[in-house]
């Protein structure tokens, strides 16, 4: 019984840690938005942080890390592939438009 309680409190601490990390990363994003960086650097940094936050939410809050790995393999690569297919079509044109703006 006491072992179970210890396990639970560990669980609580784990999720609270993830929460604090997510909040800190959000604060970092807001600060970064007001630092003078080039558009590409800014886009990559913000998207990278967002993808990392999404991964944290999926792994811990949505419990995916503690499920069978085959579930992750079924769900995530398919989604990434589909998004990548869309990006392949729009990315070159977006970059061209961005350069044309000067």
């Amino acid at each position, binding site marked *: 019984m006491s072992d179970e309680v210890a396990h639970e409190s560990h669980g609580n601490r784990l999720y609270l840690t993830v929460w604090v990390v997510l909040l800190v990363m*959000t604060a970092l994003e*807001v600060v970064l938005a007001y630092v003078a960086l080039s558009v590409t650097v800014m886009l990559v940094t913000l998207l990278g942080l967002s993808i990392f*936050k999404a991964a944290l939410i999926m792994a811990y809050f*949505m419990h995916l890390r503690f499920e*069978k790995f085959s*579930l992750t393999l079924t769900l995530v690569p398919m989604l990434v592939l589909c998004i990548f297919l869309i*990006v392949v079509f729009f990315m070159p044109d*977006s970059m061209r*438009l961005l350069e044309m*703006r000067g």
Partner: protein
Amino acid sequence: MAQHAQGAAVSSWGGGGRPYAIGSKKLGMWLFIISDALTFSVLILAYTYVRISNPDWPRPFELWPSITMATVMTFCLLSSSVTMVMAVLSGQRGDRGKTAIWIWATVAGGVAFIVLHSNEWLELIHHGVTPFSNPWGSPLFGATFFTLTGLHMTHVTIGVIYLAVVALGFKRGKYDTEDVEVSGLYWHFVDLVWMFIFPMVYLLSNVV
């Protein structure tokens, strides 16, 4: 009979078992979430692409009140995700009353988000932004902004109703812990989508 059971244990794809070791409700919610994630990906991409294509894209999101409020909204959603995790943990411990309280805390976070975001919408509408025009520049701003954030706000609203139903039903013993977990999956997904809308729509407004 014994041989059959043994066969099922050897191959998880032999039928009668659960290949992913989760219930069908949870798997169903996961599949919905993945398809919904694609919908949101496309909407965010559309918003970003149209914005880059228009040099006169409106930038109405100032540090105060828009960015500050959006940050507070992010805080509301992230915190409501944690309370939802706490609800699931209490449910697994078998504490029905505590689970319901945590779910209601999650609902409160969702309602706070809806109130703040509606305020933002009303502010924009007050300045004359419609899906077809706005006083600052490209008319596509209203169309894409309202579609993207509107669909997200619809998800939050549905989530609040869904969680309230689960909280009431769980306390009466109508639903079990798996149902709480599945509603939690949906709620975390709504939170996750906002993690992309916040930087792509609000924060990048300063840059491009």
